[in-house]
């Protein structure tokens, strides 16, 4: 693949009708670029690769110190099988799915109307509120988890999965509202006017014009909410203690480490399966994924 790219680079070069040294310089620059890329790809993909290798080994092979840890000699799916059939891994997976789906739905239900109101219907304090939303997005969860611990306890939701559904929106709603204000703001005002002339009310305007037109933005925000909820670690760590309430991020560690025995094969298999949903979403919707991320700082 890299060979093909280099030749296309060289084929483009003669168009300049420059001396050969420049062409050669360009070519060396390209080779340097590919070497740098290869080094970083290896660095970036090494941990996931090692995760995969370990998850495919039998426990005996993992414990065997004489072999090469980077390759697997007799691949087996026993760890995956054990995780899916015994223990609480399926429960944790179900909890993660449950929490994530609820949070995504709640986030969208809150932030779409709010973004519509803030971008189109000026009212007293609306610009200040938009700024406030952005500032809330910058508040990290480590700043507030201790008072939230007290509040959750006071509400009787300690060690309750649904506390997560209550708390995660604080992490997703501000950013989703913020990028949606940007997307809605970029819709031309003529569309609203046309709709108003046709006798549409604000809800019809939102439903029939804004949501369809801003669908890429909504999809990007949805993916963001999904990623954040799936990856959240501090809140489940602080507020959930019993295994049947836990989500994947905390459940893997708490269930597979008993005292000093680390079941590394199972830990890696569990981690890999937990990483799969975001990776799949990313693989199929990469452009929306990236759009959602970059929009936060470039839009609005």
């Amino acid at each position: 693949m890299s060979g093909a790219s280099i030749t296309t680079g060289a084929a483009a070069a003669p168009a300049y009708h420059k001396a050969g040294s420049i062409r050669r310089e360009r070519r060396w620059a390209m080779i340097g670029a590919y070497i740098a890329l290869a080094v970083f790809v290896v660095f970036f993909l090494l941990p996931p690769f090692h995760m995969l290798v370990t998850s495919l080994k039998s426990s005996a092979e993992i414990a065997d110190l004489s072999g090469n840890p980077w390759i697997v000699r007799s691949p087996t799916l026993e760890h995956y099988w054990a995780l899916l059939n015994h223990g609480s891994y399926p429960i944790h997976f179900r909890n993660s799915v449950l929490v994530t789906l609820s949070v995504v739905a709640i986030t969208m239900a809150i932030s779409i109307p709010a973004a519509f109101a803030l971008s189109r219907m000026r009212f007293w304090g609306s610009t200040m509120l938009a700024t406030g939303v952005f500032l809330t997005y910058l508040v990290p969860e480590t700043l507030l988890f201790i008072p939230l611990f007290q509040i959750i306890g006071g509400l009787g939701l300690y060690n309750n999965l649904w506390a997560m559904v209550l708390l995660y929106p604080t992490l997703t709603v501000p950013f989703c509202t913020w990028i949606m204000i940007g997307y809605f703001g970029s819709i031309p005002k003529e569309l609203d006017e046309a709709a108003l002339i046709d006798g549409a009310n604000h809800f019809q305007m939102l439903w029939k014009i804004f949501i369809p037109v801003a669908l890429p933005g909504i999809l990007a925000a949805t993916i963001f909410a999904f990623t954040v909820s799936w990856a959240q670690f501090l809140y489940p760590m602080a507020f959930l203690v019993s295994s049947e309430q836990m989500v994947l991020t905390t459940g893997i560690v708490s269930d597979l480490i008993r005292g000093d025995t680390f079941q590394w094969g199972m830990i890696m298999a569990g981690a890999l399966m937990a990483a799969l949903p975001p990776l799949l979403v990313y693989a199929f919707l990469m452009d929306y994924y990236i759009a959602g991320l970059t929009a936060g700082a470039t839009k609005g």
Partner: protein
Amino acid sequence: MADGNVITARGVPAAVAPPRTSTLQRLARRRSTLAFLMTLPLLAVIGGLVVYPFFYAIELSMLNKRMTRFVGLGNFEFLLGRETFQMVIWQSVLFAVTAVIAKALIGFILAHVLHALPAKGQRKWRGMLLVPWVIPPAISTLAWWWLFDPSYSAFNWLLTGIGADPVPWLGEAGWARFGVILVNVWYGSPFFMIMYLAALKSVPDQLYEAAAIDGASALQKLRYVTLPMMRNIISITVLFSLIVTFANFDIVRILTNGGPQDRTHIFGTYAFQVGIQSGDIPLGASVSLFMFPLLAVFAIFILRGVSRRTKEEA
């Protein structure tokens, strides 16, 4: 309630419009009421679960351990006097600053290299380079933990393979600090890369052409075209990442849990240990609040950068 509003709002334009101004006024009033109602859930989330807990945190931080007595700034004083906490401050700053500089540099280099590639291959490389940032850090840190394992470390296997000594990755303070920073850099660099790549693509080609005609070298193009054009996005990204890195929790918690001898604790993990694990809620709240002044300053600068950017685009 919202439905009721809609129905009357729909009725208004259709109604025979006798005193026109008052109808318009009523419409405007109704419109802002409707808008307010639409933002009400947002206000509830922010007010109830962000603003209120923040003030509650301040209140908590001024109580004694049993939360029965007001102690003023006693908790903060106590913390500042403790050697462990002084090390937490120092380690948090070291962790955030080193990691952000490394992430920004790697991201900048990768963005440039990617930008120079032909469009076809670019996508594939970009896809692979973003993987660390897609895997939830709480999950990927498990892989790093296993790579740093004292007896089974696959890195040490490679090191002994080339004749070097095995490294006590998480067992010794210096190496443990290096380890948590390394994992953070691994996780965060793709974010910088993708932000810079987006910014690079938005620099108009004419500027480079003009620079080339003026005989600028590659380095001069970088210095006088690319950097000034990207200055704002670089500062926003760096400040944003400083906040996130400074307030990190997952990586340190899983990799070292603050050890060895509390040398790798940062604010988040230390607040967790003091507040949740040891049950001293007020002291934990004080530890968290120590982050606030610094975060507030970063946030103000980000806001300035973002609003300047909006003005440029408008």
